[in-house]
């Protein structure tokens, strides 16, 4: 990176000025497109992201180790530069920029807010150490979660669907979502229990998340209780971020046992496959702020029917009148306005599962974004304001045509989560444009989701790339026969080799090997030995006389 730094001509710079100049160079190159040349968070790309990039001129930092409302320590700012902020568009720069460049950027960022110069660097709070998580602590944390009303924003189940949701705004009036506590990999300040505890103590300045240090200081709750709360919050998320696998396995169940409802207990035993969903930013109109970021897929079949259970988090059951104001606000702030302007409107939630109309032979398949005019796709479309789901054929996102017939569907929104079961016979009612599911072969599959209360509809939504679904079949008998055959063949061959070697040894050296190995003569193996060994009448090509050992 050293070659990058071009100092302006002119007088020599002091070390500090040179450092600041270096910071400016690096900042202008890598940070300004979002945070703005002036540090006001209004760079050219800012309008394409929510939450918006930080405005450094206000000296307000979400992730700190200092008390609520205080300026951050230098280490706090460095940590954000190094590690980025999960759940936002801010990446980590640790592996990208040199330590010196990052330090210089940190100093330059501080220069946007004058009080950094006059205010003494605050002392970080003493956070102590995390007590071990126990069931009792988590339970106590849950009681506190309820009693201090974290659910007002985060919801009873932590899925971020609290009643305050539609009105939440950040320090600059932009709409902001209460974080879904079950997805700790998206926590802005990190998802470990220590990091959660710190956010509770310090609050997240500039967001609706308040600080709890006052409560601890005033004796309204103890530090230990706050740790319990942190443990409870941590326990809402899985141990690890879900792994993405390319193939969804649909296990086979007994005929007639394919579950029909979302509440069927059979589903609890079925493996979940996480499919990430991201913004549709490929065709016009694009949508840079999708609300659905992933779906868990479970699948079963019984040789006759296939059922999928799809689970995704959604803060509301659209259309929900309470969320109209969210729609208004999110439409107002999300650039770009592409195509016709969009009005807030009561829109349903939608979901679509995409297949090719026929299982492709080679690797070629329809365009993943709902096909094109040459190769259409086959869709199962569901929306929250209608019963059932319908089959459709699409030749691109803007050319979707409903097919006759229907797909069995059962859907339920509960506590910030949709669950949807879609079911169809493996054999289509009408082969026209509809997939015939086959077992034992990977079938391309893709997913689309729309949150109506987030103004999503048509191309404004979340999409996935192609994945595969594999309908398991009873393994063919060869699966079990082949290894046995292999075992017997190899074992037999081994015995033949040993027997021949020993025979030759006896013929040559006459008893040098001592008594013959009983291992080659046990009755059960005799057959094999005889089978292979009688070819051994030949004396073999070995003609070098063996010296006595």
């Amino acid at each position, binding site marked *: 990176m050293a070659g990058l730094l071009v100092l302006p001509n002119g007088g020599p710079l002091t070390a500090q000025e040179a450092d600041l100049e270096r910071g400016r160079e690096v900042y202008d190159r890598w940070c300004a497109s979002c945070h703005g040349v002036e540090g006001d968070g209004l760079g050219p790309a800012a309008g394409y992201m929510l939450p918006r990039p930080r405005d450094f001129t206000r000296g307000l930092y979400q992730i700190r180790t200092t008390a609520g409302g205080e300026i951050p320590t230098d280490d706090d700012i460095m940590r954000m530069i190094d590690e980025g902020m999960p759940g936002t568009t801010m990446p980590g720069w640790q592996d990208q920029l040199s330590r010196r460049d990052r330090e210089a950027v940190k100093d330059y960022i501080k220069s946007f807010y004058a009080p950094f110069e006059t205010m003494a660097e605050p002392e970080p709070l003493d956070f102590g150490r995390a007590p071990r998580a126990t069931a009792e602590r988590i339970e106590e944390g849950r009681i506190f979660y309820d009693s201090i009303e974290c659910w007002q924003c985060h919801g009873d189940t932590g899925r971020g669907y609290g009643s305050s949701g539609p009105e939440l705004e950040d320090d600059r009036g932009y709409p902001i979502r209460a974080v879904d506590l079950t997805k700790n990999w998206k926590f802005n300040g990190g998802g470990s229990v220590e990091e959660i505890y710190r956010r509770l103590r310090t609050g997240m300045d500039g967001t609706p998340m308040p600080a709890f240090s006052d409560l601890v200081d005033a004796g309204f709750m103890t530090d230990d209780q706050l740790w319990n709360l942190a443990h409870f919050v941590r326990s809402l998320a899985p141990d690890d971020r879900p792994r993405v696998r390319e193939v969804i396995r649909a296990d086979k169940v007994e005929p007639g046992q394919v579950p029909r409802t979302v509440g069927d207990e059979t589903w609890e035993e079925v493996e979940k496959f996480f499919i990430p969903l*991201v*913004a549709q930013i490929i065709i016009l109109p694009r949508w840079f702020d999708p609300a659905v970021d992933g779906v868990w897929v479970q699948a079963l079949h019984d040789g006759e029917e296939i059922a999928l259970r799809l689970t995704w988090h959604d803060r509301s059951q659209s259309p929900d009148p309470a969320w109209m104001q969210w729609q208004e606000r999110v439409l107002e702030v999300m650039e770009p306005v592409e195509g016709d302007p969009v009005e807030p409107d009561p829109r349903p939630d939608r979901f679509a599962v995409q297949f090719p109309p026929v299982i492709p032979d080679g690797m070629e398949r329809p365009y993943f974004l709902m096909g*094109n005019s040459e190769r259409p796709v086959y869709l199962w479309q569901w929306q929250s304001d209608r019963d059932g789901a319908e089959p459709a054929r699409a030749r691109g996102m803007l050319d979707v045509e409903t097919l006759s017939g229907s797909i069995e569907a059962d859907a339920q929104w509960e506590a910030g989560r949709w669950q949807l079961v879609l079911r169809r016979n493996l054999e289509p009612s009408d082969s026209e444009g509809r997939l015939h599911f086959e077992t034992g072969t990977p079938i391309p599959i893709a997913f689309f989701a729309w949150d109506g209360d987030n103004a999503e509809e048509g191309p404004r939504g979340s*999409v996935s790339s192609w994945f595969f679904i594999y309908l398991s079949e009873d393994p063919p008998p060869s699966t079990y026969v082949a290894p046995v*055959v292999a075992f017997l063949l*190899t*074992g037999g061959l081994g015995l033949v080799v*040993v027997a021949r*070697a020993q025979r030759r040894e006896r013929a040559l050296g006459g008893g040098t090997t001592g008594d013959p190995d009983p291992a080659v003569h046990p009755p059960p193996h005799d057959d094999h030995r005889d089978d292979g060994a009688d070819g051994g009448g030949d004396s073999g090509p070995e003609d070098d006389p063996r010296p006595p050992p």
Partner: protein
Amino acid sequence: MRDYLRHPFWQAIAVFVASYVLIKWGIPYIPPLLGFSSAMVPSSVIIQYMLTVGVGILVWVSDNEARWKRFKEPIRNLLVRPERRRARRVFLVLVPLLMAFVTYDAVRPKVTAPAGLRSVHPANPTSITVNGETLVLEGLENPFREEGREEEGYELGLEIYYQNCMPCHGDYLDGQGHYAHGYNPLPLPLRGGGTIAQLTESYVFWRIAKGGPGLPREGAPWNSAMPAWEAFLTPEEMWAVTFFLYQQAGISPRTWDEH
């Protein structure tokens, strides 16, 4: 220990194992320590390499009569010596078991995605039509570079890049934008010597203008999430962003001007 090291049989085994370790882990992990990029060796290539190594070893051990004899000794001992009886039996059970397992692994129904082979940089067409104008790609130059409008190209390209390309190709042009994880194949990293550094600007312009849908079959156009940017941007803007990519990724000599 010494005896073992001198023994051709054990030497052969050691060479074989060391070769495997080197090919399997040495190739991907050692060059990065020295600052070169590298990647895992595909298993089919490993098998080829190991076959070559095996043949080499056989040639070496059989090249000299005495060595060949010594080489065979431990094998012969295992097959015939009475004091090796126990080891012999163990081998006679373990090897067939291993074969049975390998066979099972080969024939059991597998839940894997079919191989998605694609050419990352397929051959470009001779000409493309953008905005009604037919452009012959060969010899086509970036007007911003050609006309020396470098400042302008960089500024315009920067704005366009961070508004449009950054969500996938990343703030650092490393292919790690915040939506990159949702697309398959992953967005191309633009920095480093391996990607656009190897391509002409006209090729990059073609890729930007026509995107995934404009790929030939061998590029797997059905999977690529690259938009056809001609629907969003003017040719001028696409040239600017092309210029910007090289500049920002430090591939352009102007930016990476070594002292």
